[in-house]
């Protein structure tokens, strides 16, 4: 029997374990001392404590995760998102230990994880890119000259960056030198890699990404577009599919470009190709995420596919069981991230104890969560408590249903503030309701609130 170890925590660990259970696989959860007794720990057939609270010594500690797999006889490791999910060293160690890593091969992950290298690869594959450097620039004068050629505003990004960190928008040449040095210093401190690159910055852009699936036999399909433009500090809060207002033609072009790009890179498994869209709906390659995304369920709800099951089949070497023509997304799906964060205090985390929790229910509502009444939010990890998802035949219906679901959601505790109420104001925003918003929406809403 196949046994899958889930090297993650929180809602995603539970979500992956559930599919493993449906497929009849044995399950192993690993956990830190902070997560002893968590929902995933209780759900799995076996659980192994791999270290103390700080992720560096538990969820990110490769020897401990591998030992847990060896100890429990796990054949596969699903890394979820975050932690070791995009760590090529981890994928390599898994391969060396004879454990199947659920994700792309280590060398592919390494190349695509380096944003400067990924850009160069996608140029070769014929994908459109924003004007900018096709490789990392080390020299500040060279970078500044490049910025002048590109035209301001530009964005300086860490090659090894991710999660919205290690990037700086530069409005004019006066601050470029300082911004460049600071971004490099941040990149060195946060990612241990000071290389950066420069590209044109779009002030009003939409963030639209394509979900892809590739098997190990050279076949790839795209599963539609997700719009993730509702962001604060480059962190997504609301995601939806299809991307509102985008023509089928544009989505098809983006999908084909995405599949072409990842197949050229030798990609296997589930992946996401992120694009920026300007106001003319011209799309530009941004990066490839070599993992299952937080927002993958919106794609599942319109396609009827279980992306984790697809990942596990692909990892086991099976060919894709369907072709592009078989992919027929239906209706609209929205996800809202319920975080333990206070929108009134610039989304500061609010670690607390959950006293009351009643998830929303009713037709076409899905809640992915690891939380229950009495749950103590550990300070060691991210602030995601629950993902509330809805499906409806069209976008207006989905927005109404989401508003109803968030109204039903009860998630309270002393000093606990979540994003739920704030997200209802986003849903009610005329720009969002019209599907005409871009990544600047939350900043604009914040400004409106302060001026009122």
């Amino acid at each position, binding site marked *: 029997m196949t046994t899958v170890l889930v090297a993650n925590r929180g809602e995603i660990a539970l979500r992956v374990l559930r599919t493993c259970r449906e497929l009849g696989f044995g399950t192993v959860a690993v956990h830190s001392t902070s997560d002893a007794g968590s929902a995933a720990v209780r759900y799995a057939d076996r659980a192994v404590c791999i*270290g103390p609270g700080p992720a560096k010594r538990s969820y990110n500690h490769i020897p*401990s995760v591998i*030992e*847990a797999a060896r100890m429990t006889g796990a054949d596969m490791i699903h890394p979820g998102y975050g932690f070791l999910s995009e760590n090529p060293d981890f994928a390599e160690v898994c391969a060396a230990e004879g454990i199947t890593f659920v994700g792309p091969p280590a060398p592919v992950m390494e190349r695509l994880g380096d944003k400067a290298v990924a850009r160069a690869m996608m140029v070769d594959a014929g994908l459109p890119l924003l004007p900018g450097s096709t490789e990392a620039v080390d020299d500040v004068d060279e970078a500044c000259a490049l910025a002048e050629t590109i035209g301001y505003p530009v964005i300086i990004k860490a090659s090894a960056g991710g999660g919205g960190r290690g990037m700086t928008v530069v409005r004019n040449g006066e601050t470029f030198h300082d911004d460049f040095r600071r971004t490099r210093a941040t990149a060195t401190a946060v990612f241990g890699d000071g290389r950066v690159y420069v590209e044109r910055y779009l002030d009003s852009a939409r963030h639209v990404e394509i979900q892809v699936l590739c098997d190990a036999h050279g076949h790839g399909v795209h599963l539609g577009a997700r719009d993730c433009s509702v962001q604060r500090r480059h962190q997504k809060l609301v995601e939806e599919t299809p991307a509102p207002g985008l023509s089928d033609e544009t989505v098809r072009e983006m999908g084909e470009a995405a599949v072409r790009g990842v197949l050229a890179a030798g990609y296997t498994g589930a992946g996401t190709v992120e694009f920026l869209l300007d106001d003319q709906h011209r799309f530009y390659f941004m990066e490839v995420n070599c993992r299952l995304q937080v927002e993958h369920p919106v794609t599942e709800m319109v396609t009827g596919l279980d992306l984790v099951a697809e990942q596990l089949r692909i990892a086991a070497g099976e060919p894709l069981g369907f072709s592009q023509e078989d992919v027929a997304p239906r209706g609209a799906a929205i996800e809202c991230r319920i975080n333990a964060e206070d929108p009134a205090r610039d989304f500061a985390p609010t670690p607390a104890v959950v006293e009351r929790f009643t998830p929303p229910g009713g037709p076409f509502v899905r809640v992915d969560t690891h939380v229950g009444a009495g749950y103590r939010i550990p300070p060691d990890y991210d602030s995601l408590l629950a993902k509330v998802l809805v499906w409806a035949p069209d976008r207006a219906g989905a927005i109404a249903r989401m508003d109803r679901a968030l109204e039903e959601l009860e998630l309270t505790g002393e000093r606990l503030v979540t994003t739920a109420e704030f997200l209802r104001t986003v849903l009610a925003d005329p720009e969002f309701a019209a599907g005409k918003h871009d990544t600047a929406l939350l900043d604009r809403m914040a400004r409106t609130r302060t001026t009122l």
Partner: protein
Amino acid sequence: MTATVETTDLHAVLAALRENAVALAVSGTQPPTRIRVEAAGVVVELGWGAAAPAPVTAAADPAPVPVTAAAPVAAVAPTNGSSAPAPPPGHRLTAPTVGVFYRAPEPGAPPFVAVGDHVQPGQQVGIVEAMKLMIPVEADRGGPVLELLCGDGESVEFGQPLMVLG
């Protein structure tokens, strides 16, 4: 937790607390800088370092706080008044990482320690191997080895008790 504690039980608790506090106080290489003893809720708490008073004489021991005295605060878990069973005696030394526990430095070699041996704080008492990495297990306090809880070559989780020290 029961609302009241019988006087005789209170005396017993206090005696146990005293005993534990003294045992802990002498276990370190330095005198503790902080002692807290509580009664009905049952707490013994000793601290080393941090709030240490300035040495009175220039000849004071300059040795740093031993890193192997892992937990700066040792505490006895609260018991439920007179109705709860007494906490098992001794101190549990736990695994520093998930991995395979070895009692000896190499196969066939005599074990680091056996029941009845007296160990010093910081003394190596075993190995946990995680992916060919040999992580030494060191006694986090001095005292006799009362019981071995884990066999040679057994898989252990992080924090799993390996042996009981007196």
